[in-house]
């Protein structure tokens, strides 16, 4: 396979595609809402209405508006149908023939879509994730080709550094710097790991990328492998993502068949193979050292760093570990260049970020927005605000993050601004809360999550989260005193200062941030206890 052949495949595929494509989402969210039957019925309807020569029905990845699934979109006219049932299929096809448009039609120009900027999700909802040809038809694998034939590994690393891309897995570590470290290490063996363990409650950005555009991630991994000198990659996917696993398997098979993965990629001396590892079902396995232990077949528990994986990772070899979304940015950066990428976003946060917008909000789903967009734009304009009542706070960063009060909605969404106010970007969870939500209960919800997910290796996290959870429960149940509040604050600080890995270190964050902005809610619950006491005595 060389470039001409790649372009030939792309052309052939484009020629093969019909002029009207009926895109039906077949990702997990819509599948759960019966989108596979919708798709079948659409296909039958096309056949029965005799439109087969110009219309085709294509199963595509997630379009983002998952709260309204199953979604069907007509390409190129860009009509969107929401909450489609299998029975709606004939009339949707009928509409292509001039029939009456059903009321289930959505608004594809809604700010939810219009304000997005799609780099990672450029193909999702447009290509069939199970077809490598469709991926190639939209320019897929040309970046890998370019990387191998037009760039040296050092140039690639420089390009990534210059782009300003930072890790999307939560830590926000500069990706180029990490690549440079691994590239610099001597080692007869090196690895690239794609972290697809995505364990934050409510987060499904990575799942959606893997399900909707698996080749984009494979391409990013292969470029990374070439840049850092690794010949072997692992994708670590959580077991709860069977569809992602299945599509990745298929994608790897297809790429291997074309000589795009495996040995002598594009007939160059570069070999790169990718294996899938299925997660051990614990949140902490997403932590990089735990993940490596898990791939090695050991208990998925974190181990002390240093040494960092970049120096001594999988089987003690230098290992590059990046998040799914991070890797999904690579092909675009190589294709469009670092300057283009770094023109998007803010000073220290470049590019886009996908968020899973959930909670008390009108428009639930996945959005990809440029860094620096204000929280208010996301919540009020794209999300359409709270259905009833008023917004109280937005939680970002999941169990490691914090709650941002409504008064601060104008802050720009970027790494530094979020951490300055005591929250964090995290992996992209964004939960909107209305006035009726108790912030202490929110804090307790996340603490309970951390308590259950603590691996148990280090004592502050193992035992500290239990006590924190108990204290929060006491407060929620109006059984607490001011002493308990003091204890809570001290314990938060201790767990943060002394835990071994990110889980424990950040576990107190939701408590700390609600204490910072909503302390009166804690005090009210404690006063309620004192009232009870005075009433009964």
């Amino acid at each position, binding site marked *: 396979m060389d470039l001409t052949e790649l372009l030939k495949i792309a052309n052939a595929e484009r020629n093969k595609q019909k002029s009207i494509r009926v895109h039906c989402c077949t990702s997990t969210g819509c599948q759960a809402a019966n989108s596979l039957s919708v798709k079948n019925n659409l296909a039958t309807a096309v056949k029965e209405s005799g439109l087969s020569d110009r219309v085709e029905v294509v199963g595509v990845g997630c379009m983002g508006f998952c709260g309204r699934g199953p979604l069907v979109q007509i390409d190129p006219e860009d009509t969107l149908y929401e909450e489609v049932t299998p029975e709606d299929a004939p009339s949707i096809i009928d509409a292509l023939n001039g029939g009456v448009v059903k009321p289930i039609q959505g608004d594809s120009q809604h700010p939810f879509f219009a304000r997005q900027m799609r780099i990672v999700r450029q193909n999702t909802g447009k290509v069939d994730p199970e077809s490598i040809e469709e991926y190639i038809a939209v320019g897929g694998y040309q970046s890998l080709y370019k990387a191998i034939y037009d760039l040296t590994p050092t140039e690639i690393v420089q390009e990534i550094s210059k782009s300003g891309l930072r890790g999307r897995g939560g830590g926000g570590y500069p990706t180029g710097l990490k690549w440079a470290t691994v590239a610099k290490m001597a080692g007869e063996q090196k690895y690239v790991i794609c972290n697809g363990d995505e364990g934050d409650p409510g987060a499904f950005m990575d799942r959606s990328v893997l399900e909707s555009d698996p080749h984009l991630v494979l391409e990013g991994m292969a470029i990374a492998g070439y840049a850092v000198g690794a010949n072997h990659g692992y994708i670590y996917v959580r077991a709860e993502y069977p569809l992602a696993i299945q599509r990745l398997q298929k994608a790897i098979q297809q790429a291997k068949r074309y000589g795009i993965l495996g040995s002598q990629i594009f007939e160059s001396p570069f070999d790169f193979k990718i294996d899938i590892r299925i997660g051990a079902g614990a949140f902490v396995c997403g932590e990089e050292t735990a993940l490596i232990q898990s791939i090695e077949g050991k208990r998925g528990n974190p181990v002390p760093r240093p040494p960092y994986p970049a120096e001594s990772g999988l089987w003690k070899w230098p290992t590059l570990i990046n998040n799914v979304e991070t890797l999904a940015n690579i092909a675009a950066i190589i294709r469009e260049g670092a300057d283009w990428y770094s023109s998007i976003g803010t000073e220290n946060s470049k590019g886009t970020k996908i968020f899973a917008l959930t909670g008390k909000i009108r428009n639930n789903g996945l959005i990809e927005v440029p860094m620096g967009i204000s929280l208010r734009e996301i919540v009020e304009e794209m999300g359409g605000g709270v259905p009833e009542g008023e917004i109280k706070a937005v939680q970002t960063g999941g169990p490691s993050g914090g709650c941002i009060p409504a008064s601060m909605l104008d802050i720009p969404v970027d790494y530094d601004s979020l951490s300055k106010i005591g929250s964090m970007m995290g992996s992209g969870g964004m939960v909107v809360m209305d006035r009726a939500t108790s912030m202490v209960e929110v804090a307790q919800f996340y603490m309970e999550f951390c308590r259950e*997910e603590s691996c148990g290796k280090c004592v502050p996290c193992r035992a500290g989260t239990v006590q924190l959870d108990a204290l929060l429960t006491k407060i929620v149940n109006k059984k607490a005193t001011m002493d308990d509040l003091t204890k809570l604050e001290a314990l938060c600080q201790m767990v943060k200062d002394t835990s071994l890995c990110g889980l424990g270190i950040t576990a107190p964050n939701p408590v700390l941030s609600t204490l910072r902005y909503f302390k009166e809610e804690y005090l009210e619950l404690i006063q309620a206890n004192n009232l009870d006491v005075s009433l009964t005595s």
Partner: protein
Amino acid sequence: MNSQQAKINGQIVNIQDGETILQAAKRLGIEIPTLCYSEGMHPEGGCRMCLVESNQKSLPVGACHTPIQAGMEIQTHTPKLEALRRDILSLYLDDEQPVFQGNGKETKFTGLLQDYQLKPISDSQAVKVDNSHPYLSFNPDTCITCRLCLNACEQIQGQFVYGISGRGSESRLVFGAEESFADSPCVACGACVDLCPTGAITDRDRLNLTPADSVTETVCGYCGVGCRLEVESAQGKVLRINPVEDAVVNQGHLCVKGRYAHSYHHSSDRLTQPLKRVGEEFQPISWDEALDLIAEKLLTIKADYGADALGAFSSSRSTNEAAYLLQKLFRSLIKTNNVDCCARVCHSSTALGLRTVTGAGAASASYVDIEKAKCIVIAGANPTEAHPVVGARIKQAVLNGARLVVIDPRRIELAEYADIHLQLLPGTNVPLFNALAKVLIAEDLIDRDYLNERVEGFEEFCTFLNNLSLEEIASITTVETNLICEAARLIGSYGQTLFVHGLGLSELTQGTASVMTLCNLGMLTGSIGREGAGMLPLRGQNNVQGNADMGGMPNLITGYQPLNNPELRQRLESLWGGVPPEEPGLTIPEMIDAAARGDIHALWIQGEDVVQSDNNETHVREALSNLDFLVVQELFFSETCQYAHVILPAAAALEQEGTFTNGERRIQHVRPAVPPPGEARPDWEAIRDVAVKIGANWNYQNPGEVMDEIAQVAPNFFGGVSYTRLKGDGLQWPCPSSDHPGTVTVHAEHFIRGKGQLVTIDYIPSPEHGVAGYPFLLITGRLLEHYNVGTMTRRTPNQELVTEDVLEIHPADANREHIADGEPVNLESRWGSTTVKAKHSRRIAPNTLFLSFHYPETHTNRITGPHLDPKSKCPQYKAVAVRLQPNKS
């Protein structure tokens, strides 16, 4: 502070590569509290007690796992850190869900609690204690899940007994998938016990908190690894045994035998008085009477039948000094060379083979080479059972990346860790090694410079190999050609390789040949004399090396000196006041034959149950009953004692002073931890006193004086050895002068014999191969829990761990022969038969069987036949033609 320095509590420290903050602080004498860390193991990083403040980090860092770096300024005991430590510790003591409940014991953990003014909430009733194992117990109420035990088990023993179930606060230490200690794969090495900071895992012998009135450092009396022990005793009884923390041999580790199986010392059936045969009975007599009787009998028999009508078997369990004196007694006073040691029936082939081709009949390498080796070959040895501490070290080396080839008819435990396992037909080592050599040469995977400079016989060897066919060898050995090639390529790709072998090589009619052909591989790969490589035979018993070193052989005097060496004879004339005949004497099997024929009339057997341990038991019994006089020095009334005329009660390993020499030539000081029971005495004293009765002027006051004489008799090997130098880890011979540090790698400059010799030896099938009507080949050997004929271990709780011998049979064979798992079978060779329970096992290949020999009632050695290696006279225990059928009675 310069660019190579850091500061801890204001003190400047020079950075050392790879050092952690904890280690650097320790060098400055600053103690940082720890709970989950132990030197030498990967830091767990869980307890967070070791947190310190660093100017380079905003959060405190773990001192046990953070490398110290230039420019760091560390504070270890600020009020904030001390408060954090106290807060962390109090997490274990939560009122509602206490992780730790006291058990009244003072441990490292309770010590820390005290330091931080904390107290356990409650003392647990210890209801949930797991006492299922004879030696170990576990109390979950005091377990703080620090995982030190788990790490010790994985990183020291390599046994993977423990697991963690559950997450977070629910996480608990568990025995893998098993319910209890007893069901777990624990091999009772005790490594975890020593590290548990709370005493949740305890030795059951440690539950007895009797304080020791004395603590003695000595050497284990079991296998040839030679672990150093620290024996705690009170009122003359052994309380408990710990490993010596910094011993080079065992590095703070022990095995189930060395650590726990010591109660035989105080067994009620120890021999405590000299006994004399009166008719069929034995009567107690005084030592004086016994000594007189022995002296008189030896002299009369010599007078009646000549010196060569007498003989002695020295024991590989006794000390160097006793072995030396026994051969000296027979050589210088009786004037016969009929002295041999029980190494004859184990590693005589190794000693002879190695000596022939290299010039030294011992390991060229040392145990430290295990960690240095990149590639290890194990041939005919099962180290994790027979030499557990070395086995654990090999396993760790492999887990840490060393490559491993196992050559053994059984799928031994280490075969599961091996890159390649060549499961050959018993007794076919020689052709297999030749085939490996052929591939190494054919594919030019050899060290040509080494061969040119240091080895002779290469041309001839190549010609010889040219005539061998790999296909033919594949069919003889039952190992596929491509597997042989693969193994050779793996070895060849590393070149220098550590060759570890055991009795599976030596106890064959081609025993010496097996050892020498293995040495061929050692030379082709340029391994012998190099660090991390070379020959490392695993010697069976504690002092089997020493016994041969001391001259417990009919053809060689102390230090492997030929009898006819004129210089030596001169030296002996002045040191001994008499020289032995120049003609070599008889080996043990030859003496047994001679006794059966009536040519030998008197034997002195030191600490060896020949009836049970020597091959062809029926014949041995006949021979012994033929004797006019038999002296036995023993701990217990063994099978052999039945044939004795005088029995001398002997001191056991922990009851005497002397030296043992381990399998890596290391002479270590043995010290008495407890007194012998009753009138039992060390072997060397009894021999000295008999000599005096015979009229010699031996006036050694202590074994140290015997060693001084040994140094003079064999200056090349032991000239620099004396008790004053045997502190700590002792000395590895050769140690020719008092300023010589001992030798880790023999043949480092050149082979002791000048040039190494490649040998051209072809396969000769043993008389046990292809015997019509006997379709199986039987291998005999040891199990972890027992030691040889079990005299010692059967008198300890090890008995509860393994209660009987087993016959391993491949399930396919068992099904064909209609033998159920656990069913008794009649096992029959051409030489004898016995009944034993069959155990289905895939450790053994089809058409081969394995039988242990720890129980007298098994009579394993009724089965083994009369065949000897013609050179070493070592019997063939490792391949016997047998047949079997279900025992229907």
